[in-house]
């Protein structure tokens, strides 16, 4: 299981062209029929579907989470409020806070404690802050293994933590979503909030990487 960032680009599917495997064709047809029927019955509107897909593809992404982290690194009062009540603190930044029914909890990495997030049963994820989850987050191996052997899984992501670091694995659910507040990288003391944003990757917000300059 390759957990590096390139993993998701390695799929050699022949998407729209060439012969498709029958299962892919069956699913595409079923989805097409589903949309056609629901539109015909007035249950959904194609424009709404278009708008939602565009929103998730172009607007909502880990940049939101990165902005929350950069503010927390820059403003101790904000960080305190974020850890105590993430939803209210995130609203201060005029960022989307997601579904009110599923509160977000921010867990802080410290020199002795590293947090990592999973959804063992499906794919729960703080989408308002991170966008849609990456493929590996939804994959059976990650979901099954990160609870059992977090240290080994993190090593596969290229993150080797000292044996003395305590690992905390947070299982997201329909009721609660988690985001990691990474440690502020050494050497970033003089950085502006805007510069700090660029140090926070999606993977750091899930806890499978540290914050730092993009590799």
């Amino acid at each position, binding site marked *: 299981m390759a957990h590096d960032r390139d993993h998701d680009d390695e799929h050699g599917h022949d998407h729209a062209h060439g012969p498709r495997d029958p299962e892919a064709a069956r699913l595409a*047809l*079923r989805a097409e029929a*589903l949309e056609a029927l629901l539109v015909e019955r007035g249950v*959904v509107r194609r424009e709404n579907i278009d708008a939602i897909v565009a929103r998730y593809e172009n607007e909502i992404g*880990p940049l939101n989470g990165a902005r929350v982290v950069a503010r927390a690194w820059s403003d101790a009062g904000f960080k305190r409020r974020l850890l105590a009540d993430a939803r209210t603190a995130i609203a201060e930044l005029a960022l989307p806070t997601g579904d009110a029914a599923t509160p977000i909890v921010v867990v802080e990495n410290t020199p002795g404690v590293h947090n990592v997030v999973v959804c063992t049963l499906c*794919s729960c994820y703080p989408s308002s802050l991170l966008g849609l989850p990456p493929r590996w987050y939804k994959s059976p*191996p990650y979901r099954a293994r990160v609870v059992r052997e977090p240290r080994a899984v993190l090593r596969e992501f290229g993150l080797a933590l000292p044996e003395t670091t305590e690992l905390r694995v947070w299982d997201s659910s329909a009721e609660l979503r988690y985001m990691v507040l990474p440690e502020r990288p050494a050497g970033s003391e003089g950085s*502006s909030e*805007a510069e700090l*944003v660029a140090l926070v990757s999606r993977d750091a917000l899930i806890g499978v990487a540290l914050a730092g300059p993009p590799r």
Partner: protein
Amino acid sequence: MSADPLATLGGSAPPRKNGELHFDEAWESRVFGITMSLHEAGAFAWGEFQAELIASIGAWERENGTSGVGFHYWARWLEAFERLAARKGLLKSAALDACVAQLAGRPAGWDHPV
């Protein structure tokens, strides 16, 4: 103070999706959009869909294990949505099957006009 620190960030902003495509196939994005659209319109609580998704993924893993080989997340999502839609009376499986059969009967190349 500037409300948007990114206004000055320019080209060094992290990619919003970390360079990743969310959907391999167009139908996956359509099914996602349909689900979110109905949820936002109040057709079901998110937990209701979540329960179907968990059931679909769980059943697949009990049959196929957790190696991930052959796992297709959006196929599980589609199955979950179909079940929820049926339960909510939005769409009966029989109607969907009939529509699928009708679409499948289109002549080859119907979507590739010369």
